[in-house]
């Protein structure tokens, strides 16, 4: 009897012990941490119970099959490859999706928003896990390049639905023929033409007239071209003693103000040299590396501008306190900056810092040999080939593209001219007391760089690191480099990189 009791106690103890052990194991391995983004979970949906709740980045899971809560076909929209991942944008995106889902019963958009820094890797992981979204965007040319052979040709859907964007320049429609075999992988949504931002105060201080704001206008009786930019840039470059770069007393080792740069050009020689004409590092056969003349001429102009004429800052100067550690124009010490409409984001520092620039304006991009090339950035939405619901996804895509709320939210200049006024007013409100001439960016849309400076080359991500290294080298090598020799080396390197992925 006694022995049975002991046995019973032992078993109870053992059972309890096992239970505790199991609990420990489960609690250790099954923590209530939030699910990893990009995991192969069912499609998440927007989950804003009320406007006061913080927006969800990835929201509650939906059933993997079957209709969404509104009875419509579930279409997953992946945000983060371009604009859209900023904290202040999440709420508005979720509200837009909720309103759309409530307005009809055919399509249910399930929104997924990721931080831009990780979005590309998360999308890759989702594709690898067999759980890709249906729509990606807003996304620019470079983002599309990374997933080029995963993108659906939209032309059959455009033809079958009769979709058209009224009033949009046909050049912009063709701009998105970026897929394999020139497939249409996007429709015009937001555009970011490039032009010159100039600091009016620095021009006033030097007693120089502002650069032209109309195509064809001259500057001080001469054509507004790259030679004029060089000359003007040198006059606006000043050393600590107040001498400009055209003066014999100018001290290049002690510069405090520079004339020109193409800020935030992603260390790309293609972007820099685009002012001299559009070009690509790959030949028309799509596999042979080439160094177009525009690149050679353009990079020599920059190399001399940094090290001989000193009106363009070197990498060390850009990263110094004098040029706000990289935000050159915002520092107030750069007179002219060639950039896109999205750069309005960065003319003033984030609050509560006080702007260093009091007054600035927009000017026409300079010509080279009589031809203007204003490099273009453009955002769109794309469908992945893997989508199982192309018709519903295309319907959702056209809704996104047509939304003026989203255009304003992402800060892109609408491709459709009829929608632009709202964008201009919103942007103007950020710069009280400053008059911005919006005819300049609109005029520049007529001079896009085709081929685009971000257009596809084989093994794109690796090729990009090679041309960035070239750009970094000439900007960091004291005295400059032999551009022809460096470009010859780059050509060999690029050919090796292209050959790695040759079929």
């Amino acid at each position, binding site marked *: 009897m006694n022995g049975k009791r002991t046995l019973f106690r032992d078993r109870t103890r053992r059972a309890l012990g096992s239970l505790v052990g199991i609990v420990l194991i489960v609690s250790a391995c099954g923590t209530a941490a939030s699910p990893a983004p990009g995991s192969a979970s069912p499609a998440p949906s927007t989950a804003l119970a009320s406007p006061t709740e913080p927006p969800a980045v990835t929201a509650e899971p939906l059933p993997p099959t079957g209709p969404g809560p509104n009875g419509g076909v579930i279409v997953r929209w992946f945000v983060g490859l371009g604009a859209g991942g900023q904290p202040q944008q999440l709420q508005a995106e979720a509200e837009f999706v909720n309103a759309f889902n409530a307005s009809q019963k055919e399509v249910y958009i399930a929104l997924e928003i990721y931080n831009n820094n990780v979005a590309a890797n998360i999308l890759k992981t989702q*594709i690898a896990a067999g759980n890709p979204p249906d729509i990606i965007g807003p996304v620019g040319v470079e983002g599309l390049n990374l997933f080029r052979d995963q993108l659906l040709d939209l032309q059959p859907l455009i033809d079958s639905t009769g979709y058209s964007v009224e009033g949009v320049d046909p050049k912009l429609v063709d701009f998105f023929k970026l897929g394999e075999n020139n497939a249409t992988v996007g429709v015009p949504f937001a555009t970011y033409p490039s032009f010159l931002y100039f600091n009016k105060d620095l021009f006033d201080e030097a007693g120089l007239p502002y650069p032209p704001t109309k195509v064809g206008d001259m500057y001080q009786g001469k054509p507004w071209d790259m030679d004029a930019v060089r000359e003007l840039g040198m006059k606006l470059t000043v050393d600590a003693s107040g001498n400009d770069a055209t003066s014999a007393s100018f001290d290049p080792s002690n510069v405090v103000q520079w004339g020109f740069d193409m800020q935030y050009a992603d260390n790309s020689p293609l972007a820099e040299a685009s002012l001299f004409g559009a070009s690509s590092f790959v030949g028309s056969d799509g596999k042979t590396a080439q160094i177009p003349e525009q690149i050679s001429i353009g990079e020599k102009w920059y190399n001399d501008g940094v090290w001989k004429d000193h009106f363009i800052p070197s990498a060390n100067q850009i990263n*110094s306190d004098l040029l706000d550690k990289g935000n050159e124009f915002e520092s107030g010490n750069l007179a002219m900056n060639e950039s896109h409409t999205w750069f309005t984001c960065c003319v003033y520092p984030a609050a509560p810092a006080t702007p260093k620039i009091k007054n600035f304006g927009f000017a026409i991009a300079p010509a080279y040999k009589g031809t203007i090339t204003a490099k273009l950035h453009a955002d769109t939405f794309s469908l992945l080939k893997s989508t199982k619901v192309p018709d519903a996804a295309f319907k959702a895509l056209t809704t996104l593209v047509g939304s003026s709320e989203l255009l304003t939210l992402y800060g892109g200049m609408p491709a459709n001219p009829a929608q632009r006024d709202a964008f201009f007013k919103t942007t103007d409100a950020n710069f009280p007391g400053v008059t911005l001439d919006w005819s300049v960016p609109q005029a520049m849309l007529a001079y896009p760089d085709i081929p685009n400076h971000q257009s596809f080359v084989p093994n794109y991500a690796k090729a990009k690191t090679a041309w960035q290294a070239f750009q970094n080298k000439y900007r960091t090598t004291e005295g400059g480099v032999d551009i022809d020799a460096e470009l010859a080396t780059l050509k060999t390197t690029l050919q090796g990189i292209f050959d790695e992925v040759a079929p």
Partner: protein
Amino acid sequence: MSDTTEALIVPISQVGRPRWHSTPSGRERLWGFIFIGPWLIGLVLLTAGPMIASLVLSLTNFDLVHPDAVRFVGIDNYVRMASDPNVLKSLQVTFSFAIIAIPVTMGASLGAALLLNSPKLIGRNVFRTLFYMPIQIPLVASTLVWIGFLNTETGWLNAIIGFFGVKGPDWINSETWIYPALSLIGLWGIGNFMLINLAGLQSVPTELYEAARIDGASAWKMFRRITIPLMSPILLYDLVISLVVTFQYFTQAYTMTNGRGDPNHATLFINLNLFNEAFTFSRMGYGAAIAWLLFVIVMVLTLGIFLFARKRVYYAGSDR
């Protein structure tokens, strides 16, 4: 002995062996397994599992963006590494940096520990805190601060050097000066090693120094003959950890060059190259192969250090 007593004594062989978990030591073992169970499961699922998976991946051409095209390629990835200029360059960069950074880090952390262990130093605790504090700052943030500090135009370091009439070098963009610059940045983070060395120094019996002093030993001799031998297990630990950390060097190089390995691939450390191949270029299979190369290199070097240290490290209480 009575018949009754004899009847109670049964040979063990007739009773049978007790079950292992019913003995006291068995129960201890069982409880031990229960308590380390969560960790063991974590080890298998989160460490061993991914390691095996990466080994399998390294034998494929797995590309994140084209998962359907995955196929077994045998040892192709490993063969390719032998002729890949980026892999060869990254190995050269990593070894070159290790040769400079490991002795500098070890020497500086031991030197700082010796200084902070000195009874003559006033405010020792304040200095110990100050030396340790940089460890608390996130690496990316501290690297950004260093980039500003080392800038040729407005950086403080070249301004200080310039004060003596000498033009400072281009620390970040020169292939020659980038390693000293990175070593300098590394010195900022010696707090952990310094603390471990300090603990080691404080465990050296003071009687040994007193006896040596009576025998007329100089400070250098005491350092060489007492401190170093008694600190040898700690120094071995420092060396192994420094080696592992150096071969996994990534954050500073990535932050300074946006992952490109500038200038001219001088900071293309093997871990950075691995990251680029696997995540930037999406070649997960090739990236996994580089990861295994890194693992083998670190393992071989660590084993080599342990073999070398067998007769050179003094363990109190051991027979060596």
